[in-house]
Each structure stands twice: as structure tokens, then as C-alpha cells.
């Protein structure tokens, strides 16, 4: 940004360096470029298809678990499946799933008006990405089935 800095005056670099203070996020820039190459090598369409298949599978299997109500079932579905489990608060579900090695998000997801629309206080949300597999869906569904046992419900 600067050229020479003195107590009473400073001189500045030419544009664009003049507008860039400090050390740029060089590692971030290099990492971003590599990440874009990685994603493009796999192919965005292929990733989308992979996620859609997982979501469809998860919706079908979770929807068949007694007491599960899927929240938000519009199409097309992208990457996430939200649900509530009858008689068990979302946070209790997520703690129990966590102990089975499954990470989900529970709460209002910074979307309180949506929660109000569906008449729920909170939901459990599983999200799927290119690194998830069918066995992750199976593990999720199986763990959700066991939640009510843990809660004695």
C-alpha cells in the first residue's frame, strides 16, 4: 500500500497495490484455486446428481421411520434433509446421533420464520456432499431408529 512513510507525510504505491494493505491472503488464494480445480475435475453436474440421489434415498428411508416427519419436501431437493422426531426434541436427537458418530445440525438454523411456518421449534438437519456415501444414509436412518430407545420413548 505504501512507498515511504514518515512522521508527517507518506507516499503511496501505484494502483492497484495502493488499495491493498498488509499481506494478502496468499494461502487462501492458492487454496481456492486448487479447490476449484478439484471440483471441476469431478464435475459439478456429477456432484449434483450424487447429492440428489443421497437426498432422495435419505428422504425415502427417513420418511419410513415411525415418528419422523420430514420438514420441507419440495422439489428439487438440494443437499439437505430436515426432520422432526415425534416426542423427541431436535437437540436430544442430535446429541444421541453425535454419539453414534453422526454429525447433524439441530435448532432453528437461523430460519425462525420457516420454523414458525411449519409449526416446529427446531428441526434436525442432515446435509450431504460429494464425500458422503449411501452407507452414511444407512447409518443415519439406523441411528434415528434407535433414538427413541435411548429416550425410553
Amino acid at each position, binding site marked *: 500500500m505504501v512507498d515511504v512513510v514518515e512522521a508527517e507525510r507518506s507516499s503511496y504505491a501505484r494502483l492497484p497495490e495502493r488499495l491493498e494493505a498488509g499481506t494478502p491472503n496468499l494461502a487462501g488464494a492458492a487454496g481456492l484455486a486448487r479447490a476449484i480445480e478439484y471440483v471441476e475435475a469431478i464435475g459439478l453436474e456429477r456432484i449434483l446428481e450424487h447429492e440428489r440421489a443421497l437426498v432422495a434415498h435419505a428422504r425415502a428411508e427417513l420418511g419410513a421411520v415411525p415418528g419422523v416427519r420430514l420438514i420441507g419436501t419440495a422439489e428439487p431437493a438440494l443437499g439437505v434433509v430436515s426432520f422432526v422426531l415425534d416426542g423427541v426434541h431436535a437437540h*436430544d436427537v442430535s446429541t444421541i446421533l453425535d*454419539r453414534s458418530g453422526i454429525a447433524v445440525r439441530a435448532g432453528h438454523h437461523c430460519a425462525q420464520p420457516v420454523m414458525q411456518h411449519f409449526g416446529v421449534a427446531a428441526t434436525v438437519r442432515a446435509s450431504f456432499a460429494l464425500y458422503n456415501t449411501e452407507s452414511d444414509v444407512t447409518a443415519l436412518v439406523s441411528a434415528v431408529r434407535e433414538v427413541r430407545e435411548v429416550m425410553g420413548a
Partner: protein
Amino acid sequence: MSELEQLYQDAILDHHRAPRNARALADASHSAEGNNPLCGDRVRVTLRLEAAPDSAGGLESSIVAVGCEARGCALCRASGSIASELLLGRSRAASVALIDGFLAALAQLTAPGNSAADALDVLGALEPSAGMSAEVQRQLLPLLEVRHFPSRRRCSTLPWETFRDALHPRPEA
């Protein structure tokens, strides 16, 4: 028992399924609301305190009726129910002491380096100031299992903090 089983042990599930004093008092002298915006847990407590002569010839204010409505997860509901049972009949001073004792116990058990500390030992050390009999300590133990679940601690402390607010309202900031 696994830590998960201890968190959701029978004592907790019982209070979750059938919370005691789960109502709003019609003639409350004290009330407070507590809220955890991160998860939607919400607690509303109502109390009726009445003064009666104490052993020293003065007047002591005691909780003669209590209501605790906790909306949210099982830990919050169970904690509110247990707190309401333990506070009913206590003097205001003894109630505040018990609340502070419980919160201090959890704080100690979750402090860095204390993961192996024994909960009963910690409660026992706090007992003289907190007025916790052995029976009270026994009833608090299940609530202290939340020490192994950092993201759930607030679920357990919210009802106690709300009771404290009702008994000693904080000045408006």
C-alpha cells in the same frame, strides 16, 4: 453405562416425561423468563414467597408455591422439574444458595483439567454454603452428567438461572 446413557438416565427421562410443577401460578409474587436463542429452549418460572417468623425471631421469606414451565429439550425440562422440587419450601436465601451451589458445581466439573473430578466430592465441598443434604446431592447428580456434553450445558443451567432471576432480579442494564 455410557456417558450418553448417564445423560439420559431414568431420573432425567422421568422428569422430562412428567415434569413436576409444570404450570404457571395464578398468584405469583415472583416470576422470570429465560430463553436460549441458540436452540429455542424457553423457561418461565413463577413463585409465591411468603414471610414467616424464623428461628431468630425475625421474618424469613420462603417459597410456598412454585411453577416451572420449560419448553424445549429433555435436559431443560428435566432440569426445571428437579429445580422446582428442590426449591419448594426453601427460604429465599437458602434457594439462592442452592442455585449458586449447583451452578458452581457444574462450573468446577467443566473447568479445564477437571474431567476426572468426582461430582459427589465437588458437591460435598460446596455443601456447607449451599445447604445441600446428601439427598439433595443425590438428586443433583444426574443433572451434572451434562458436564461431558459442552453444547448441552446451557440446556441444564437455563432453568436454574431463571429461578435465580426470579428470586434476585438483575438490575436493568
